[in-house]
């Protein structure tokens, strides 16, 4: 092709065909995302709007803020704090137990790690209800653990392991642990082992290399797992209800009671809205902190 030819009709060439092809690509995207979009609107946005709407009506059907004013009563404030306390304890215990497991898995040969991973994923395939009742059997006054400990002569009185905070935490940790280990393992696998060699070449003992190189680089994975568990814990119902023995008044228990015992949908809605807003805020704050942390300079 000569210079003259390439310079001539460059603007008009195939404009309409290309525009049509672009439009077609756009339509394909809309078409593919439509089912998911409709689903989100139908099962998430509309019910939540409805929930928020209901929370603004009192028992007599009048528009009021009574449902929210009620939440300032000591019983609800206590329940709110309990919810956060349980979520925090479960999260901390999960990190303490899960971090070494993830670390071990990330350092083992791929094949061995895959086999061990089955043991972590296995509980996922068992119903939460079954697992929770299993803990009830193990932890109760005449349960396996108390019987053994008594027979071994380690305790004279059965330990109060269930129908309280301890039982709730044990049960919830068991259910939440995989949610920490899986993202943490994934993030640890992305840490280049050469970096640890480099650290030891610089003069770092294995402990120093771990603390100053591996640990900081694994923190994003920890944060992901922690946010996931913490949020799941905030709204968790079944395990606290069964293993708490009515003594652990989680926010979710309050919601259930409000509907099951008092049929007060307005009040239950207000509780739900508060939980949702708080959960959303936490996720938003964590991701904002994350962005800030990745921008600021790090150091030893």
């Amino acid at each position, binding site marked *: 092709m000569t210079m003259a030819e390439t310079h001539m009709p460059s603007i008009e060439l195939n404009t309409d065909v290309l525009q049509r092809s672009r439009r077609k690509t756009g339509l394909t995207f809309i078409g593919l995302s439509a089912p998911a979009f409709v689903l989100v609107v139908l099962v998430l946005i509309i019910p939540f709007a409805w929930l928020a709407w209901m929370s603004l009506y009192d028992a007599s059907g009048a528009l009021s803020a009574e449902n929210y004013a009620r939440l300032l009563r000591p019983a609800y404030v206590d329940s709110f704090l309990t919810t956060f306390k349980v979520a925090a304890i479960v999260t901390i215990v999960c990190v303490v137990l899960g971090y070494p497991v993830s670390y071990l898995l990330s350092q083992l040969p791929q094949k061995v790690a895959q086999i061990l991973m089955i043991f972590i994923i296995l509980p996922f395939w068992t119903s939460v209800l079954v697992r929770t009742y299993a803990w009830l059997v193990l932890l109760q006054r005449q349960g396996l653990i108390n019987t053994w400990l008594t027979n071994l002569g380690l305790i004279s009185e059965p330990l109060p392991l269930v129908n309280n905070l301890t039982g709730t935490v044990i049960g919830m940790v068991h259910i939440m642990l995989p949610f920490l280990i899986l993202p943490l393992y994934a993030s640890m696998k992305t840490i280049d082992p050469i970096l640890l060699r480099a*650290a*030891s070449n610089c003069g*770092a003992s294995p402990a120093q290399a771990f603390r100053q190189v591996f640990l900081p680089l694994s923190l994003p994975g920890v944060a992901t797992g922690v946010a996931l568990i913490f949020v799941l814990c905030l709204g968790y119902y079944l395990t606290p209800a069964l293993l708490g023995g009515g003594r652990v008044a989680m926010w979710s228990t309050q919601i259930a009671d409000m509907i099951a015992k008092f049929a007060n949908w307005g009040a239950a809605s207000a509780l739900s809205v508060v939980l949702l807003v708080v959960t959303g805020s936490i996720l938003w704050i964590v991701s904002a902190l994350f962005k800030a942390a990745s921008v600021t300079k790090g150091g*030893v």
Partner: protein
Amino acid sequence: MTSGAVSIRQIYKAYGSYKALDGISLDIAAGEFLTLLGPSGSGKTTLLNVIAGFERPDSGSLLVDNTEFITRPPHKRDLGMVFQSYALFPHMDVFANVAYPLKLRKADSSTIQAKVTKALETVHMAHLAGRRIHELSGGQRQRVALARAIVFEPKLLLMDEPLSALDKNLREHMQIELKRLHRTLGMTTVYVTHDQQEALTMSDRIAVLDRGRVMQLDTPRAIYDAPNCKFVAGFMGDTRFVPVERNGSDFALGGQPLKVRAAPAKSASDIFLMVRPERLRWHGTPERDNRIEGNVIDVIYLGDSHMVSVELPQSTEISIRHTGAEATSLPKPGDRLALWMTPESSVIIEGARS
């Protein structure tokens, strides 16, 4: 200052039935720039990792300044290393990366400040001390990695193909810079590469490795001009091997007696004349030089010159550059061509090392 002399004795390392290091012994003088050159799988990186302490050999001895290092953990070896992937800490900025070895050595902050600045200046990176690692280009990362390896003034510097990830121009520039740096700092340097050009440019001596053994250990000139076996000869330059016949103590090519410089003492059956493009001449005299004749099969334009490929009767292909400065015009494919080699550049190589 301790000198940094290294003595490697009978190092063996096997992975199952595969021998990564098959009895390596070599001495590295203090202040020397020694290159471990070899193809992938030759054991060069394994040997470097043994020196650094990342690989535990099955047997052998590693003396650094007459101290046994073989069981010493890597963090107590006090040697600098530049990794192929640079291995900079992504959660630290440039300054913190270079300061890391000093912090571990409990240097005070003014010393750290001074030494890090000096190291970064040495590699021309002082202006980027506050940058994050992911903001740096490949060449800049390479410099930071080098600064981190030299900041604590180790007596021994190890480099594992440090330039292989850089583009050609930058690589050639860095070769010269590394060589200058070595001259200034004077630390013993062990450099691993598979690039023969890099090895020839930078080294005081080269150890050519193949299948876990040192094939030849000598100066770049000796390795290039007088390789001791076919493997080394083939690894250096664009080498072709033309089979020759043995006539008692003499050699012949296509019936014509050859005038050669070096000849192997042993009487191996496979013997070749080593032919490289730059050793061939367009002109020569039959009384003094060796004559090689063949048919031109290809003429390839290279920009600064043409590469003329010639097929010999022995069905071997050799090639020669035509730069335009010769008195001969550029031949065409199909032409009959006579090329010449001086006796000084005619080297006989044995096939299999027995």
